[in-house]
């Protein structure tokens, strides 16, 4: 397919999934006729018709709830939530039903839905369009929560999430939707209908985005490019070589990769945009200390969003973890 942005990678994943399996349907607000406010579903209506690509009424509980019902019947619905904050009206359906359908049916009828959530700040959006709610879902048992950060992972993980029998909360870092391009091959990452192991890997393992022996930065989503920049700066300025671990899966966490990298480097920093209190970073930090404290030269530190409502956008850059704040955090860990 050539060089794609993340939006194009997601779009390709959806198209390939829909072409391969006619049980895949796409629903949400403004997803059909316009292809979604971010254009992730562009072209699907023309290609797959209005029964499989549906502009729904404006009602997130209804959308998620209907998707669950469709899944019970055997379809594979992919729901778009227009912006992060607008998932909250669908919260009950996700945590009470999607998360528990398999459990409530002896594992026979999982709610095989994918809930796509463009999330986070940095796009100069108005109030209440920039939340990072991933930890809320990661705390709810029964869900898988993933977040691709490259165009290729976007495509591959989309295919995997759709094929996965369990409900997947698919966090899309909107800030880097079009931040860069990457070669995404036409070939599928696994053979659809037979991709168990590869599919599982895509939805449960972290990816090493950079290798280095002195420090590991553990992150996901919009802060990944910033960590890579910070790593380069550390290499330049202090000859410190960093590993950057792209979590990809937020539930389950890839505990082996997390702990191994922290043990190897002896120093670890967790970075995310969401608020700190009981966020993904808190879990990562706890896991590392619990399992590898004796390997650590310094405590694991966190650079995160603050425990405040996401600010109005004139100040969003003050809120968002910056390369400089990441460096500050890294220095704390390095100089401990």
């Amino acid at each position, binding site marked *: 397919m050539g060089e794609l942005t993340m939006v194009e990678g997601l779009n390709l994943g959806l198209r390939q999934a829909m072409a391969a399996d006619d049980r895949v*349907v796409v629903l949400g607000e403004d997803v059909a006729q316009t292809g979604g406010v971010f254009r992730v579903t562009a072209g699907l209506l023309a290609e797959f018709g209005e*029964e*499989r690509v549906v502009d*729904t*009424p404006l*009602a997130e*509980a*209804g959308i*998620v*709830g*209907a*998707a*669950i*019902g*469709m*899944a*019970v*019947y*055997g*379809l594979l*619905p992919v729901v778009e939530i227009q912006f992060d904050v607008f998932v909250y*009206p669908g919260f*009950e*359906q996700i945590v*009470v*039903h999607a998360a528990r*359908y*398999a*459990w*409530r*049916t*002896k*594992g*026979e*009828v*999982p709610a*095989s839905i994918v809930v796509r959530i463009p999330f986070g700040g940095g796009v100069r959006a108005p109030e209440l369009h920039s939340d990072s709610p991933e930890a809320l879902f990661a705390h709810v*048992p*029964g869900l*898988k929560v993933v977040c691709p950060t490259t165009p290729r992972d976007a495509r591959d993980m989309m295919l995997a999430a759709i094929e*996965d*029998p*369990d409900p997947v909360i698919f966090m899309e870092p909107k800030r880097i939707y079009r931040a860069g391009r990457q070669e995404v091959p036409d070939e599928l990452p696994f053979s659809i209908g037979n991709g168990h192991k590869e599919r*599982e890997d895509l939805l*449960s393992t972290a990816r090493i985005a950079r290798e280095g022996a002195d420090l590991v930065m553990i992150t996901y989503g919009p802060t990944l490019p910033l960590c890579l920049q910070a790593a380069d700066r550390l290499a330049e300025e202090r000859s410190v070589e960093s590993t950057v671990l792209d979590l990809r899966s937020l*539930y*389950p966490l890839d*505990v*082996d990769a997390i702990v191994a990298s922290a043990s190897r480097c002896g120093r670890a920093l967790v970075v995310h945009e969401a608020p700190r209190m009981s966020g993904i970073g808190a879990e990562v930090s706890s896991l590392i200390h619990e399992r590898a404290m004796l390997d650590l030269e310094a405590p694991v530190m966190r650079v995160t969003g603050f425990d405040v409502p996401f600010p109005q956008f004139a100040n969003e850059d003050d809120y968002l973890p910056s390369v400089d704040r990441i460096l500050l955090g890294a220095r704390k860990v390095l100089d401990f």
Partner: protein
Amino acid sequence: MDEPEPNILRIIGDGAGVPDGTVPDGLGDKDLIELFRWLVLLRTFDLRAVALQRQGRIGTYALYWGEEATQAGPLYACEDADWVFPSYRQNAIGILRGVPAATVLSWWRGYGGVHGFYNPREHRVAPICVPIATHLPHAVGLAWAAKIRRDPIASLSWFGDGATSEGDFHEALNFASVLKVPTVFFCVNNQWAISTPLHKQMATKTISEKAAAYAMPGVRVDGFDPLACWKVTRDALDRARAGEGPTLIEAYCYRIMAHGTADDPRLYRNESDAEKWKALEPVGRLASFLRRLGVLDEDTEAEMRDEAKTTMAQAVKEMESIEQPGQEILFDHVYASGYPWSFTEGLDELHAAERPPAVKPLGPQPTSGGTSDHDLPPQPQQGV
């Protein structure tokens, strides 16, 4: 028996002042007998479950004594391939679709996994839904999916008068009407949501009139009349299958009993009202009607009651023969794709510790008002 309010379909009279209507087309004598058998089975289940709760052999239980017509009637109107979505109030509906009674009892006994849950696809019966009105969007989504797949099936969901206040009720009805989904919304208006009476729940006098907000038909029916419940549901299903979309049915009745075994209605209503309504209860009423029709004789009736009792006795035995489920039941089936690593660790943790004693049996329970009693044991049963 009083005349019903206007616009309420009633078929079964009292054989005295209020004349019987005619049996609707589509219901032969065999059907009438089978429908009666269903009512008897539901009633027997309910009585038995209440007794089991009193004896502490199951936990809190949401009884439905008197509401059997609203359950058996609509279900009998469904085709076998149609899906139904019960709330906790229709908890035993599955037994009319092949779910073992022991499974439902076991759910109330606090068993999960293979003991307390069933495979909805096997019976076209969704899991018993506890959070109010949340299953309505599922019923809509399912029937919508069937429509997309060109399968000629419909869905039906049950819910109460209180459920109409939830946002999910509204979103489900709106979705169904916009997308012309073949589904039936069957509202059991028993006039109470725990202690909250209808007039504190809504400003409308009826629930059926809410259908206007969705440009769908709204129908009222005597909720104590199984034939009338069958008839309005069958009509609604015909409409649905003809591609004409959803229908809202209001089955007007009364919650004759407590909300659940942990509820004491004396705290909030005059129980003599309930007494009045008791005269309309559907099991005795259908029995009299069938006797008036000459379709049911005493022997058949007695046989049915015996059969139901045997079924229940068997179910209780089965339930009580279940061993305390192993600790892996916590982790099994949470993910259809298998255990994440933390589950294995969790099991290890459990195995390293001493296992707490089994919780059953619970021991005898107060006959009512558990929640109002300040001297309850530290772990009162609650909920539903």
